[in-house]
Protein backbone atom coordinates (compact mmCIF):
# COMPACT_ATOMS: atom_id res chain seq x y z
CA UNK A 1 0.00 0.00 0.00
CA UNK A 2 1.20 3.56 0.19
CA UNK A 3 1.41 6.17 2.87
CA UNK A 4 0.60 9.80 3.10
CA UNK A 5 3.27 12.19 4.20
CA UNK A 6 2.64 12.93 7.83
CA UNK A 7 -0.31 10.59 7.98
CA UNK A 8 -3.96 11.37 7.51
CA UNK A 9 -5.90 13.30 10.05
CA UNK A 10 -8.75 15.76 10.14
CA UNK A 11 -6.45 18.73 9.96
CA UNK A 12 -4.50 17.71 6.88
CA UNK A 13 -7.76 16.61 5.23
CA UNK A 14 -9.18 20.07 5.77
CA UNK A 15 -6.04 21.77 4.51
CA UNK A 16 -6.02 19.60 1.43
CA UNK A 17 -9.55 20.35 0.30
CA UNK A 18 -8.99 24.08 0.74
CA UNK A 19 -5.91 23.84 -1.44
CA UNK A 20 -7.68 21.85 -4.14
CA UNK A 21 -10.62 24.20 -4.16
CA UNK A 22 -8.28 27.19 -4.30
CA UNK A 23 -6.22 26.03 -7.28
CA UNK A 24 -9.16 24.68 -9.25
CA UNK A 25 -10.16 28.24 -10.21
CA UNK A 26 -8.42 29.90 -13.20
CA UNK A 27 -8.42 33.40 -11.68
CA UNK A 28 -6.80 32.13 -8.51
CA UNK A 29 -4.24 30.19 -10.52
CA UNK A 30 -3.35 33.41 -12.35
CA UNK A 31 -3.05 35.21 -9.01
CA UNK A 32 -0.71 32.49 -7.76
CA UNK A 33 1.40 32.85 -10.90
CA UNK A 34 1.67 36.57 -10.28
CA UNK A 35 2.75 36.24 -6.66
CA UNK A 36 5.12 33.46 -7.72
CA UNK A 37 7.10 36.26 -9.35
CA UNK A 38 7.45 37.99 -6.01
CA UNK A 39 5.47 39.95 -3.44
CA UNK A 40 2.72 42.08 -4.99
CA UNK A 41 0.42 44.74 -3.57
CA UNK A 42 -3.28 44.10 -3.92
CA UNK A 43 -3.87 46.99 -6.34
CA UNK A 44 -1.26 45.64 -8.78
CA UNK A 45 -2.91 42.24 -8.63
CA UNK A 46 -6.37 43.72 -9.09
CA UNK A 47 -5.36 45.73 -12.15
CA UNK A 48 -4.49 42.56 -14.04
CA UNK A 49 -8.05 41.28 -13.92
CA UNK A 50 -11.21 42.42 -15.59
CA UNK A 51 -13.19 42.28 -12.37
CA UNK A 52 -13.95 44.45 -9.38
CA UNK A 53 -11.35 44.84 -6.69
CA UNK A 54 -13.60 43.28 -4.02
CA UNK A 55 -13.93 40.24 -6.31
CA UNK A 56 -10.14 39.96 -6.54
CA UNK A 57 -9.86 40.43 -2.77
CA UNK A 58 -12.30 37.59 -2.30
CA UNK A 59 -10.10 35.30 -4.43
CA UNK A 60 -7.07 36.36 -2.41
CA UNK A 61 -8.93 35.51 0.76
CA UNK A 62 -9.61 31.99 -0.51
CA UNK A 63 -5.92 31.62 -1.32
CA UNK A 64 -4.93 32.95 2.09
CA UNK A 65 -7.27 30.60 3.90
CA UNK A 66 -5.81 27.71 1.92
CA UNK A 67 -2.33 28.76 3.10
CA UNK A 68 -1.19 29.48 -0.46
CA UNK A 69 -0.46 33.17 0.03
CA UNK A 70 0.51 35.26 2.98
CA UNK A 71 -0.67 38.80 3.52
CA UNK A 72 1.34 41.65 4.96
CA UNK A 73 0.30 45.22 5.63
CA UNK A 74 2.73 47.93 4.64
CA UNK A 75 1.25 51.28 5.61
CA UNK A 76 -2.24 51.19 4.17
CA UNK A 77 -1.32 48.67 1.53
CA UNK A 78 -1.83 44.92 1.65
CA UNK A 79 0.85 42.86 -0.03
CA UNK A 80 0.68 39.22 -0.98
CA UNK A 81 3.32 36.62 -1.50
CA UNK A 82 3.28 32.97 -2.43
CA UNK A 83 3.47 30.24 0.13
CA UNK A 84 4.18 27.27 -2.07
CA UNK A 85 4.49 24.42 0.43
CA UNK A 86 0.81 23.33 0.24
CA UNK A 87 1.24 22.75 -3.47
CA UNK A 88 3.63 20.01 -2.58
CA UNK A 89 0.76 18.18 -0.91
CA UNK A 90 -1.08 18.19 -4.20
CA UNK A 91 1.93 16.86 -6.06
CA UNK A 92 2.64 14.21 -3.43
CA UNK A 93 -0.95 13.11 -3.39
CA UNK A 94 -1.02 12.60 -7.16
CA UNK A 95 2.33 10.79 -7.08
CA UNK A 96 1.12 8.46 -4.38
CA UNK A 97 -1.86 7.53 -6.49
CA UNK A 98 0.40 6.95 -9.48
CA UNK A 99 2.24 4.39 -7.41
CA UNK A 100 -0.95 3.00 -6.00
CA UNK A 101 -2.50 2.30 -9.40
CA UNK A 102 0.71 0.86 -10.79
CA UNK A 103 0.82 -1.61 -7.91
CA UNK A 104 -2.86 -2.41 -8.19
CA UNK A 105 -2.69 -3.11 -11.93
CA UNK A 106 0.34 -5.32 -11.36
CA UNK A 107 -1.80 -7.17 -8.84
CA UNK A 108 -4.59 -7.43 -11.40
CA UNK A 109 -2.09 -8.98 -13.81
CA UNK A 110 -1.04 -11.48 -11.16
CA UNK A 111 -4.66 -12.30 -10.49
CA UNK A 112 -5.36 -12.89 -14.19
CA UNK A 113 -2.25 -15.01 -14.54
CA UNK A 114 -3.28 -17.09 -11.55
CA UNK A 115 -6.42 -17.94 -13.49
CA UNK A 116 -8.50 -17.94 -10.35
Amino acid at each position, binding site marked *: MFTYNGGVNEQTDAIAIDVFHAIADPTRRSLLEMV*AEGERPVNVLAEAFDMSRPAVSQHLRVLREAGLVTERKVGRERRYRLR*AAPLREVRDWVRQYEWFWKERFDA*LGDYLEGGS
Partner: protein
Amino acid sequence: MSEPDIIQEVFYPYPPERVWSALTNPSAMARWLLPNDFAPRQGHRFTLRAPAEDGWPASVACEVLEVEQPRRLVFSWQDGPHRPVTRVAITLSRALGGTLLRLEHSGFASGGQRQVSRRLHRRWRQRLPRLFQLQVDAAALTEELFVYVTEPRAATRNRLPVVDELLSIRGVGVPVELLESMVLDGVDERQDVVDLVTGFLDRPGVVSLPA
Protein backbone atom coordinates in the same frame (compact mmCIF):
# COMPACT_ATOMS: atom_id res chain seq x y z
CA MET B 1 -13.76 17.96 -16.60
CA SER B 2 -10.17 19.08 -17.09
CA GLU B 3 -7.49 16.74 -18.35
CA PRO B 4 -6.82 13.70 -16.14
CA ASP B 5 -4.15 14.04 -13.48
CA ILE B 6 -3.06 10.43 -13.85
CA ILE B 7 -3.13 8.35 -17.02
CA GLN B 8 -1.84 4.79 -17.09
CA GLU B 9 -2.04 2.10 -19.74
CA VAL B 10 -1.46 -1.57 -19.07
CA PHE B 11 -1.57 -4.49 -21.48
CA TYR B 12 -2.95 -7.85 -20.37
CA PRO B 13 -2.64 -10.94 -22.59
CA TYR B 14 -6.28 -11.91 -22.04
CA PRO B 15 -9.49 -10.99 -23.83
CA PRO B 16 -11.44 -7.93 -22.59
CA GLU B 17 -14.27 -10.12 -21.25
CA ARG B 18 -11.87 -11.88 -18.91
CA VAL B 19 -10.20 -8.65 -17.76
CA TRP B 20 -13.62 -7.09 -17.28
CA SER B 21 -14.70 -9.98 -15.10
CA ALA B 22 -11.63 -9.62 -12.87
CA LEU B 23 -12.12 -5.88 -12.83
CA THR B 24 -15.75 -5.93 -11.70
CA ASN B 25 -16.24 -9.11 -9.71
CA PRO B 26 -16.25 -8.07 -6.03
CA SER B 27 -14.21 -11.00 -4.77
CA ALA B 28 -11.68 -10.58 -7.60
CA MET B 29 -11.62 -6.86 -6.90
CA ALA B 30 -10.82 -7.61 -3.27
CA ARG B 31 -7.75 -9.48 -4.45
CA TRP B 32 -6.27 -6.90 -6.78
CA LEU B 33 -7.72 -3.65 -5.44
CA LEU B 34 -9.24 -3.55 -1.95
CA PRO B 35 -12.02 -5.30 0.03
CA ASN B 36 -15.31 -3.82 -1.15
CA ASP B 37 -19.07 -4.01 -1.55
CA PHE B 38 -18.94 -3.15 -5.22
CA ALA B 39 -21.68 -4.00 -7.72
CA PRO B 40 -21.45 -3.14 -11.44
CA ARG B 41 -24.57 -1.02 -11.45
CA GLN B 42 -24.79 2.69 -12.19
CA GLY B 43 -25.61 4.70 -9.07
CA HIS B 44 -24.40 1.96 -6.72
CA ARG B 45 -22.48 3.41 -3.78
CA PHE B 46 -19.70 1.29 -2.40
CA THR B 47 -16.83 1.47 0.02
CA LEU B 48 -13.29 0.25 -0.45
CA ARG B 49 -11.86 -0.78 2.88
CA ALA B 50 -8.15 -0.54 3.30
CA PRO B 51 -6.19 -2.63 5.79
CA ALA B 52 -5.24 -0.62 8.85
CA GLU B 53 -1.87 0.56 7.67
CA ASP B 54 0.01 3.60 8.69
CA GLY B 55 -1.14 6.66 6.83
CA TRP B 56 -3.55 4.99 4.43
CA PRO B 57 -7.13 6.27 4.72
CA ALA B 58 -9.37 3.73 6.39
CA SER B 59 -11.87 3.71 3.57
CA VAL B 60 -12.60 5.16 0.17
CA ALA B 61 -16.18 6.21 -0.61
CA CYS B 62 -17.16 5.49 -4.21
CA GLU B 63 -20.15 5.60 -6.50
CA VAL B 64 -20.51 3.85 -9.82
CA LEU B 65 -21.00 6.53 -12.48
CA GLU B 66 -20.85 4.52 -15.71
CA VAL B 67 -20.87 0.83 -16.55
CA GLU B 68 -20.53 -0.39 -20.09
CA GLN B 69 -19.70 -4.06 -20.12
CA PRO B 70 -17.06 -5.10 -21.09
CA ARG B 71 -15.56 -1.77 -22.05
CA ARG B 72 -15.82 1.04 -19.55
CA LEU B 73 -16.18 1.51 -15.80
CA VAL B 74 -16.25 4.92 -14.13
CA PHE B 75 -16.59 5.59 -10.43
CA SER B 76 -16.10 8.45 -8.02
CA TRP B 77 -13.34 8.16 -5.43
CA GLN B 78 -13.19 10.08 -2.16
CA ASP B 79 -10.52 9.00 0.29
CA GLY B 80 -11.64 11.07 3.27
CA PRO B 81 -14.63 13.15 4.33
CA HIS B 82 -12.78 16.40 3.73
CA ARG B 83 -11.06 15.33 0.55
CA PRO B 84 -12.18 16.33 -2.92
CA VAL B 85 -14.22 13.80 -4.85
CA THR B 86 -12.03 12.49 -7.65
CA ARG B 87 -12.99 10.33 -10.60
CA VAL B 88 -11.60 7.02 -11.80
CA ALA B 89 -12.31 5.94 -15.37
CA ILE B 90 -11.11 2.54 -16.56
CA THR B 91 -11.48 1.71 -20.25
CA LEU B 92 -10.72 -1.64 -21.88
CA SER B 93 -10.01 -1.99 -25.56
CA ARG B 94 -9.23 -5.06 -27.58
CA ALA B 95 -5.60 -5.14 -28.68
CA LEU B 96 -3.54 -7.63 -30.61
CA GLY B 97 -3.24 -10.68 -28.36
CA GLY B 98 -5.13 -9.20 -25.44
CA THR B 99 -6.55 -6.12 -23.83
CA LEU B 100 -5.32 -2.61 -23.26
CA LEU B 101 -6.51 -1.15 -19.98
CA ARG B 102 -6.45 2.63 -19.68
CA LEU B 103 -6.85 4.38 -16.35
CA GLU B 104 -7.69 8.05 -16.04
CA HIS B 105 -7.82 9.45 -12.52
CA SER B 106 -8.93 13.08 -12.46
CA GLY B 107 -10.08 15.77 -10.07
CA PHE B 108 -6.84 16.49 -8.18
CA ALA B 109 -6.52 19.94 -9.76
CA SER B 110 -2.84 19.17 -10.27
CA GLY B 111 -2.89 21.32 -13.42
CA GLY B 112 -2.97 24.31 -11.07
CA GLN B 113 -0.01 23.01 -9.14
CA ARG B 114 1.97 22.40 -12.35
CA GLN B 115 1.11 25.85 -13.68
CA VAL B 116 2.46 27.57 -10.58
CA SER B 117 5.45 25.22 -10.40
CA ARG B 118 6.48 26.10 -13.94
CA ARG B 119 6.47 29.78 -13.03
CA LEU B 120 8.50 29.14 -9.90
CA HIS B 121 10.92 26.99 -11.79
CA ARG B 122 11.62 29.77 -14.26
CA ARG B 123 12.13 32.23 -11.47
CA TRP B 124 14.59 30.26 -9.42
CA ARG B 125 16.64 29.41 -12.47
CA GLN B 126 17.14 33.15 -12.84
CA ARG B 127 17.79 33.90 -9.21
CA LEU B 128 19.67 30.95 -7.84
CA PRO B 129 23.13 32.00 -9.08
CA ARG B 130 22.65 35.29 -7.27
CA LEU B 131 21.67 33.54 -4.08
CA PHE B 132 24.85 31.54 -4.04
CA GLN B 133 27.05 34.55 -4.51
CA LEU B 134 26.39 35.28 -0.89
CA GLN B 135 29.22 34.70 1.46
CA VAL B 136 27.84 31.87 3.47
CA ASP B 137 29.22 28.59 4.63
CA ALA B 138 28.62 26.25 1.72
CA ALA B 139 28.39 23.05 3.74
CA ALA B 140 26.00 24.56 6.23
CA LEU B 141 23.90 25.99 3.45
CA THR B 142 23.72 22.59 1.78
CA GLU B 143 22.61 21.03 5.01
CA GLU B 144 20.01 23.69 5.62
CA LEU B 145 18.74 23.36 2.09
CA PHE B 146 18.36 19.66 2.55
CA VAL B 147 16.50 20.05 5.82
CA TYR B 148 14.35 22.67 4.26
CA VAL B 149 13.58 20.68 1.16
CA THR B 150 12.68 17.55 3.04
CA GLU B 151 10.79 19.32 5.81
CA PRO B 152 8.95 22.21 4.23
CA ARG B 153 7.00 23.13 7.30
CA ALA B 154 6.87 26.75 8.31
CA ALA B 155 7.65 26.16 11.98
CA THR B 156 10.84 24.26 11.17
CA ARG B 157 11.85 26.54 8.37
CA ASN B 158 11.77 29.71 10.39
CA ARG B 159 14.23 28.33 12.89
CA LEU B 160 16.82 27.41 10.31
CA PRO B 161 19.83 29.65 11.04
CA VAL B 162 21.26 29.91 7.53
CA VAL B 163 17.88 30.64 6.06
CA ASP B 164 17.41 33.27 8.73
CA GLU B 165 20.78 34.72 7.91
CA LEU B 166 19.94 34.86 4.22
CA LEU B 167 16.66 36.53 4.99
CA SER B 168 18.36 39.15 7.10
CA ILE B 169 20.63 40.25 4.23
CA ARG B 170 19.14 42.99 2.15
CA GLY B 171 18.80 42.69 -1.59
CA VAL B 172 18.97 38.93 -1.71
CA GLY B 173 15.63 38.33 -3.29
CA VAL B 174 13.50 35.94 -1.38
CA PRO B 175 15.48 32.81 -0.50
CA VAL B 176 12.64 31.11 1.30
CA GLU B 177 10.54 31.28 -1.83
CA LEU B 178 13.44 30.03 -3.88
CA LEU B 179 13.74 27.04 -1.64
CA GLU B 180 10.05 26.41 -1.81
CA SER B 181 10.29 26.39 -5.55
CA MET B 182 13.06 23.80 -5.31
CA VAL B 183 10.67 21.72 -3.29
CA LEU B 184 8.11 21.99 -6.04
CA ASP B 185 10.59 21.27 -8.75
CA GLY B 186 11.13 17.89 -7.19
CA VAL B 187 14.61 18.52 -5.88
CA ASP B 188 13.80 16.38 -2.92
CA GLU B 189 16.67 13.93 -2.87
CA ARG B 190 19.66 14.76 -0.77
CA GLN B 191 22.21 14.14 -3.52
CA ASP B 192 20.25 16.30 -5.95
CA VAL B 193 20.39 19.18 -3.54
CA VAL B 194 24.08 18.69 -2.82
CA ASP B 195 24.86 18.52 -6.54
CA LEU B 196 22.80 21.59 -7.21
CA VAL B 197 24.45 23.65 -4.53
CA THR B 198 27.95 22.40 -5.33
CA GLY B 199 27.36 23.06 -9.02
CA PHE B 200 26.57 26.66 -8.38
CA LEU B 201 29.40 27.15 -5.91
CA ASP B 202 31.86 25.77 -8.46
CA ARG B 203 30.91 28.32 -11.07
CA PRO B 204 33.57 30.88 -11.88
CA GLY B 205 32.99 34.18 -10.17
CA VAL B 206 30.96 32.73 -7.35
CA VAL B 207 32.39 33.67 -3.99
CA SER B 208 32.21 31.19 -1.18
CA LEU B 209 33.86 31.15 2.21
CA PRO B 210 35.89 28.16 3.39
CA ALA B 211 33.74 25.83 5.45
